[in-house]
């Protein structure tokens, strides 16, 4: 079984986010970028499937600017066999990415597509679901366990009320939650080898899709600065403040 795994280049989770002075977007100039942590989990799961003999080939895919090849190289260093880069300088959002991925699913005919449940930049949590809709494949989102058995996959999903297990017929779309696995560190010889693994570059036009966003970004604002707290003298005063000042209880 071939596994397609989608990765996204996002702002590194350690970086303190700054907004551009004109509020047009998050400021990404000279900011450290990295693979989206949920995508790291997706790559890890795909590589583990290969190590268990379930998957035969792992193909890492990204849709984004030239620099996103760094994240594909990371996926290759972690164990993906080859990579496909759909190169675009457009601002890609969930639907554009899902359309490009749907075309690649058509071309590559994978048995499973694994994606992060969301990317930590805009937290949309949409691409996997949209990809399932566009391809007509079954989906198991927010996976905390993935068990492939012949033509079926059981996906344990993290839902509000606890865990839900669904059985899907392959090929299927799986999106990863935080507790699915703990991604490994890349090994030095694999980092060296990753350089020599095949990386195909395509344009959205090659795939016959339009990835540009139809959503207009109006304004980005940083969250309000946290105000200092106050000490209250008694429980009564606290209740009074919660009722009358904060108005969070009635």
């Amino acid at each position, binding site marked *: 079984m071939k596994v397609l795994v989608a990765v996204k280049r996002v702002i590194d989770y*350690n970086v303190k986010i700054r907004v551009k002075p004109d509020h047009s977007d998050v400021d990404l*100039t*000279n900011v*450290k970028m*990295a693979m989206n942590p949920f995508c790291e989990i997706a790559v890890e799961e795909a590589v583990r499937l290969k190590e268990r003999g379930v998957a035969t080939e792992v193909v890492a895919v990204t849709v984004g600017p030239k620099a996103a090849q*760094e994240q594909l*190289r*990371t996926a290759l*260093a972690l164990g993906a066999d080859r990579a496909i880069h759909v190169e675009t300088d457009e601002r890609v959002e969930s639907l554009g990415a899902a359309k490009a991925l749907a075309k690649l699913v058509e071309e590559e005919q994978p048995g499973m597509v694994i994606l992060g449940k969301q990317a930590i930049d805009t937290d949309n949590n949409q691409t996997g679901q949209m990809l399932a809709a566009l391809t007509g494949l079954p989906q198991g989102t927010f996976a905390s366990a993935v068990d492939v058995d012949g033509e079926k996959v059981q996906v344990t999903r993290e839902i509000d009320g606890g865990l839900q297990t669904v059985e899907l017929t392959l090929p299927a779309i799986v999106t990863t939650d935080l507790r699915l696995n703990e991604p490994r*560190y*890349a*090994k*030095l*010889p*694999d*980092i*060296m080898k*990753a*350089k020599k693994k095949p990386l195909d570059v395509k344009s959205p036009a090659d795939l016959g899709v339009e990835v540009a966003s139809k959503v207009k970004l109006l304004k980005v604002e940083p969250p309000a600065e946290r105000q*200092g707290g106050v000490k209250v003298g008694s429980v009564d005063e606290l209740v009074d403040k919660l009722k009358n000042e904060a108005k969070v209880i009635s």
Partner: protein
Amino acid sequence: MIDYQAPMRDMQFILGELAGLPDVAALPHCEDASPDLVAAILEEAGKFATGVLAPINRQGDLEGCRLKGERVIVPDAWQSAYDQFREAGWLGLSLPPEFGGQGLPKLVSTPVWEMWFSSNMAFTMLPQLNVGQAEALLIAASEEQKATWLAKIVSGEWAATMNLTEPQAGSDLAATRMRAEPTEEGDYRLYGQKIYISYGEHELTPNIVHLVLARLPDAPEGVKGLSLFLVPKYRLDADGNPGEKNDVHCISIEHKMGIHGSPTCTLSFGDTEGAVGYLVGEPHQGLKIMFIMMNEARFGVGVQGVALGERAYQSALDYAQERVQGRNIVSGEAGQPILYHPDVKRMLVGMRARLLAMRTFLYTAAGWFDIAHHHPDTEVADKHRRYVDLLMPVAKGWCTEVGNELCDEAIQVFGGMGFVEETGVAQLFRDARIITIYEGTTGIQANDLLGRKILREKGATLHELLDDMRAVARVVREDSRLADLAVGLEEMLEGLAATTGWLLAQGKEQTAALYGGAVPLLYQLGTVVGGWQLVRAAQAAQRQLDHGEGDPDYLDSVIALARFYMASVAPEAASHARAVREGGQVLAQFPETGL
């Protein structure tokens, strides 16, 4: 303590703009070091340092090591960290591919080792020993010995140690007494005791390979009579696997001020039948082999200076940004973090300036090693070898002393909380204290600099270096925006030229005075070299700014750091110069009985 984050921006800036990564990558055998691959390696190493090594640093300090009979128990977390480190292949980074390494240039391995030392110094001494031993075996071992031992040392399957010191033979190895007696089978039996053996005993690996300096029965007196032996903890069976226990025993471990996670052992060889050992290289050439490795070893310790200083700086900065205390001296506003107090800011900016100076110097020197080893033009290679020879005592002596200063100053930023162990900054101070001592104390480095590196060759390489530094000052002077930096550098260079002239003019009767000023001389040269490197850094930053490349805030800060160094650190060069010329004289006259 805050998490360690590799200072990737400085590393990338220095590699790309100052230490000549593109030039090194163009050398034969260094072709793999392309910018994108180097970036990927640094990135992954940074993740490993932050995610695996840094979090267990304090635990290692608290737990320390214990001796149970002859067994040495290292901190609990070490086994898993070592297995991950070994499996990830980091040991082989700079070692030759024919023995399982990746053969990357020193310029690439240097920032990576800096990360390991920053994140966990006590742990990192273990893999560092493997690299040192692999280098020794590459120089001197027979093909058969290489085939048997080297691949396992490069992979880290077996651990390594270096056994030089004995109770009466510390800095002076001439006093070595360990005996090696030839046997009829063609190997040797070793008898004696070695002290201060880092990782001399542990159970992290199925075997430990000791390299031991000892005397053959017919050996001449002194350092010319030392031979090098390989003594395994377990002798190998017919299949090459660890078999019978050799006659080497750990009889005690030291209780130390720092690096608690690294066991410092006393090893007793040959208590009963003699420890079986194999001669490495020719008889009586042991010290020569050690000397070939000396520049590399000193360089590695210099990197520890910048590494510990970096972690101390990161901790201090984090604390200074969080800790709210006092009123703003300008606005009178309360509730601001202490970073806004001018003196706390002074300490942090000063730390950052010295870190950038040391790091630029060390990475640039790493590039010299690569050029010296690989450059096809022997003249170019020779010049860089001369620079390595001249400046390694400075890289070791100056960067470790400054590294200690930075750890000390970080505690000052923390105030009372720095003196309290739980912040972790005190551990860095304790861990750093050894680095000015081992691999040759600062005094030994200074004597080497003065005697072997300057006086013996009548200052030839130092004059060559002075000319190169003057050339930088001349170019920078042409740029009105940086001309003040050129003035500062030129002033330091004049002072250094004057010191050099004075040193060379002194006769034999002045020997005591000269050596009495050796350490101030090392400080003076270090301070000048640091200034030279920061001026180069400012020059590169200005060039990037002019081309609209890079992050302007960062590049402006580099220029400002060079300026702050010129204003606050560079003036010390003149006081060191005075101590060289005048302090030594007074010392020479001072009666030892007057103490």
